[in-house]
């Protein structure tokens, strides 16, 4: 048992989010490039690792566990998280998880986190994933655990933690940025401003090679198949399509003076 246990949820996303239309078949071609850790989740991990450094400085015993739901190949990315400073990793992988929307993903992650050998004090997610852009997993997980959640955190101040047991978080809200205090256990989602994920060291890479990434399926974490994957997803995608970009782009030609004159006319015409 550690003094402070952080759980970071990460997702593997395609290295590029480019989507093209196959002109011959009129179907969508998503570039199946090599997967990377969702950049916002990378910031979430950095947030946890920076806090770990702070807390170790306070003389505490700190642990960071990375949890992901994904295909078996995601294990390599979790190993990379360990190389960068995470202590443990859990991969939830099962055909039963396939096709999960945010609710079913939340359920699977919750089952996985509950199956860890230690409760968490702080749950950190990236603010959103670059492929789905829903920004729902963090707040849904917090709701599932009935703990408070602060989204879009750009700065964490740990200085007062040892005296009052709470963290001061700067986060984006509708009126700008506010600072809030939060007691554990709680959840937060991180913005990229919190910091770029540190690089692994040679020592870290060695350790990660020997580390144990726990790979589990739905049954291992006692997940109800009816609440997992496609079956457990209330939402259904009925159609995907590449949006029409406005094709009627008019070229404004000529020398800069002539271009400027034409632009001035266009702008005046709109006033």
């Amino acid at each position, binding site marked *: 048992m550690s003094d402070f246990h952080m759980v970071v949820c990460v997702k593997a996303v395609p290295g590029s989010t480019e989507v093209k239309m196959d002109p011959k078949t009129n179907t969508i071609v998503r570039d199946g490039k090599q997967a*990377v850790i969702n950049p916002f989740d990378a910031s979430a991990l950095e947030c946890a690792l920076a806090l770990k450094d702070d807390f170790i400085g306070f003389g505490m015993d700190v642990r960071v566990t990375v949890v992901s739901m994904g295909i078996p190949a995601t294990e390599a990315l979790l190993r990379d998280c360990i190389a960068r400073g995470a202590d443990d990793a859990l991969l939830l992988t099962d055909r039963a998880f396939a096709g999960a929307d945010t609710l079913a993903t939340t359920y699977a992650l919750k089952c996985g986190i509950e199956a860890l050998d230690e409760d968490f004090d702080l749950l950190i997610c990236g603010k959103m994933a670059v492929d789905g852009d829903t920004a729902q997993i963090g707040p849904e997980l917090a709701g599932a655990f009935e703990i408070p959640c602060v989204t879009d955190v750009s700065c964490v101040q740990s200085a007062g933690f040892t005296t009052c047991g709470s963290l001061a978080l700067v986060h984006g809200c509708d009126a700008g940025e506010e600072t809030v205090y939060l007691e554990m256990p709680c959840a937060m989602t991180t913005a990229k401003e919190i910091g770029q*994920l*540190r*690089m692994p*060291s*040679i*020592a*870290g890479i*060695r350790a990660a090679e020997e580390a144990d990434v726990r790979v589990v399926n739905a049954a291992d974490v006692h997940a109800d198949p009816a609440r997992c994957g496609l079956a457990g997803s209330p939402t259904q995608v009925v159609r995907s399509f590449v949006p029409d970009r406005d094709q009627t782009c008019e070229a404004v030609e000529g020398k800069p003076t002539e271009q400027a004159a034409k632009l001035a006319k266009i702008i005046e015409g709109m006033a």
Partner: protein
Amino acid sequence: MSATIKPFTDEFEEYGRDESRSSGEASSISFPTSEGEACAILRQLHAERVSVTVQGARTGLAAGAVPHGGHILNTSRMNRYLGLRRDDEGHFLLRVEPGVVLSELRKQLGKKMLPTAGWDQASLKAYEEFQEAPEQFFPTDPTEASACLGGMAACNASGARSYAYGPMRPHITGLHVALTDGDLVELQRGEVFARGRHLSLVTAEGRALEFDLPSYTMPETKNASGYFVADDMDAIDLYIGACGTLGVITELEIVLQAAPAVVWGVSCFFDSEDKAVSFTDSVRPVLSHAAAIEYFDAGALDILRRQREQSTAFSSLPALDKEAKVCVYVELDCDDEAQATEELYHLGWVLELAGGRDDATWVARTEVDRECQRFFRHAVPESVNMLIDERRRTDPTITKLGSDMSVPNARLADVIALYRRTLAESGLESAAWGHIGNNHLHVNILPRDAQDYRRGGELFAQWASEVTAMGGAVSAEHGVGKIKAGFLETMYGHEAMVESARLKLQLDPAGQLGRGNLFSEKLLDELVQKGGA
């Protein structure tokens, strides 16, 4: 002929300068868009004996592209891709005009797309093969990727990856050089060689050129100082690194090679310079896939730390550990991850033997991490430039003084000891970084006032002679240009300068091209008056 000789009016003011931050005067300027136009312009200027300074992207640090009166021939608009072929070994050879910018070339190669407008059938066929082949790359990487290929050839540019791939020279297989009278020399590597130190060439117009090469011996180290001369040398090598003094490069053929499948960057931090030097010495023979070995000294890292605190531009840099005094960066270019891992562990082993710590390292294995490391490495010179810019506000006469000297492997520790001893004696502020793998550091003096600036200059002159005594070169990669002409004389001696100037005058009898580059105008003019070559 659309390219014309225009008077050098205020609108062209920026063309009077380059990255060396020195400037000069000119009376006219032209922007030819093809070899034919460039030759026509030279022909016209030759008739009037107007001096000509050749320019590319003006990213040079030795003022080679800064005019000394006369005409500026700017090649930046000669930027077409001309064709592609494969050699017997299957390498792709790309023909380009000199104004093609390196960053553009890299982008095109990365996308496997080349602008093929106007290419012949044979080139288009090679292009099809190029698109099917593994991704290709051009290894020469001067820090400034906005450099153009013509300029890189003219100063035999290098960069970090020269540790594995050498300078620009071996990657050039063909050159077209326009002579001062508008005639052309077309050279293909492996076709024309000197006999001893005598060279015979035939121009496109059929004129035979016969001339003698200088007799000096080049140092056996990374070198971009003066003309490349050797017994029985390939004629093409004379024009690479000639700083625009023998002719104007109007076309190049470069060799592409398959891009390495796995590129990992490793930054190793040490608490002392001695450990970094000992690490470098012992890691060189151990690694077989190191593409670059670079160094950042304590002065450089300190400035970076300060700028990171002060400027938002650098705030996203990863934080440096307090213990980290100096940094050695090693780039591994490997065939697969297993090979890279093996190299990495070898490196880690040497690191610990040298007194380093394997947890005080950054290993970039992903694109995001590589980008972060690139940012870090580029932030060092940038932060130093920002510091100097601040100081210029109080004293506009000072600029950064940067050295570019290299020595043989065995003298690495000696040359660093020399720098440290003399810098400490002089009390000057400095920051050093660069290509420690090639025993080639850029030591930068950061003058606080005009007196510092002058003393820095004196120190460099002292280094030039001591480095020469160690068997080194006064310019390893920037070229000599105008700024280091004095050091070149220190390195080779006066007689070699006279021989070099004679060589130039055999090809450029009126001394029109690149005045002030490599040797003093005074020497050149004296020789011209004595009847030239």
